[in-house]
């Protein structure tokens, strides 16, 4: 009887052991209240115009044991662009730039994640203005906290530079006045899904 019990327990442990990686991957939903998608772009080569997107959503999965099983995805609402100037924001929403009625979202979906010092190196497809291109960036962070009590969360940050022309954002007429490089800063906290 004892032998049978032991072998049953052993089988369960073996099954559980195999199933562990699936359990170990933690899935998080991005918490917009503690996240931000900011950008800056040169204005006629003199200064920087700072802006942000106010509406976005996303999820990510973290497997502490196997970075290859981590994944990140995010969707940004282009209509929510905000540079603290209503007239400029409306112009940025027009087909001269983002054409938000045609391309309402900027989306990112990871295709590969590697563990690096202090975080991950994430590769994925970024779709903006109807153009999809692969991008790679370093994601720093990964500390965990229970806040508020009973809610597990973690957070990451990244900075990357994109070229406007790679995604066809901004008609040629504005090429001289606005910088080609767009500096992007994304920081997000995720709340673990139960």
């Amino acid at each position: 009887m004892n032998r049978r019990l032991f072998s049953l327990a052993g089988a369960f442990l073996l099954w559980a052991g195999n199933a562990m990686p699936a359990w170990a991957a933690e899935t998080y939903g991005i918490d917009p209240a503690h996240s931000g998608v900011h950008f800056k772009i040169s204005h006629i080569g003199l200064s920087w115009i700072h802006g942000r997107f106010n509406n976005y959503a996303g999820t990510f999965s973290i497997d502490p044991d196997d970075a290859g099983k981590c994944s990140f995805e995010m969707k940004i609402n282009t209509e929510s662009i905000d540079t603290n100037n209503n007239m400029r924001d409306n112009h940025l929403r027009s087909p001269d730039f983002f054409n938000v009625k045609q391309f309402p979202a900027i989306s990112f979906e990871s295709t590969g994640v590697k563990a690096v010092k202090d975080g991950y190196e994430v590769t994925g497809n970024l779709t903006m203005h109807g153009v999809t291109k692969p991008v790679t960036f370093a994601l720093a962070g990964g500390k965990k906290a229970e806040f508020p009590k009973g809610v597990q969360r973690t957070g990451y940050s990244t900075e990357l530079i994109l070229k406007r022309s790679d995604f066809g954002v901004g008609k040629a007429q504005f090429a001289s006045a606005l910088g080609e490089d767009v500096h992007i800063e994304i920081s997000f906290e995720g709340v673990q899904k139960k």
Partner: protein
Amino acid sequence: MSFDELIKQGLEVGSQLGPAAGVAALVSALLMLAFGWPWRAPRPIRARLGGVVSVGLGFAVGCWWLDIRPSWPPQEDQDRLLFILLPAVIAVEILAALIGARLAHLQRQIPSSKSEDRASNMGFRVSGLAWLLRFLVAAAATPILLYGTTYVSGDAGPGTRQWTPQQTWMIFAGLAASLLAVWLLLAWLIQQPLGRAALLAVAIACGGTAVIMMMSGYASGGPLAMPLAGGVVGALAASLALRNASCVANTLGLAVVGLFALLIMGHFFSELTWTNAALLFFAPVLAAFPELPPFRRINPKLRAGVGIVLTTVPVLIAMALAMQKMAEQSPRPSSGDTPEPTLDDYMNFGK
């Protein structure tokens, strides 16, 4: 931003877009004259084809002059306008020109005293076919321009579609009916003595559209209206040299659909208000007012002139409203009287 500054900026925009309109007009006029040779007795079919092709090519050259480069495959409103809608209108009007020539030929062949009814019946059927094609263009114009947008598509995710299917069909039907009504009215007007002024009326509305769309935050879309206006004026001017008023009959389709499409783009993709879009689109209709029966006794030249003046009024009102809106939205300069940069300033920076 003061009124003087706005006028100054309007003139600056005009001076930038003027050459594109001029080039379009020149190309269009030369082509029209080439199609209309010999000018004293142009072949009707060639002259009618010239009325379509000359404006189409003049417009294309004007766009090239402005450095407007649509992308293929068409993804955005401008791409769909330039690659799908306007070529479709040109194709329909070429077909309509051929149909019109066939109609004229048939009517000449049938002895008028013998069977007038037969000739008019045939004419009705043949011109009915041309209008059926135009109806299809009118019905397809808005769906083509709004294809894949958040108004009609929920591809971006649940709840992202702005219009219900019912609303979509109602809006499409209403806009198609408006386009067809204006098209029909101007087609009637163009057949009146000096009715060619209808084209000038549409060109004036296009000129206003260019400036107002730019003021409404669509800096790359507004300028498209200038080569269109230039192309129409070029064909119209050349048509005066030809002894065949019907040579510009098929020019109207391209002008009206082009104007309509630009206003749809301005409103649905940018900040062009419904009021301004309606003022600009219906402005040419006022050119038909002096052709109403009570005014028929007045000299045709005077009637045409009054029609043009009447067209200009709503265009100027729309411009004033756009200026007012722009002035209200412009941020107040932080450094005293320093004027804020305009879209034109941005577009010309470094040039």
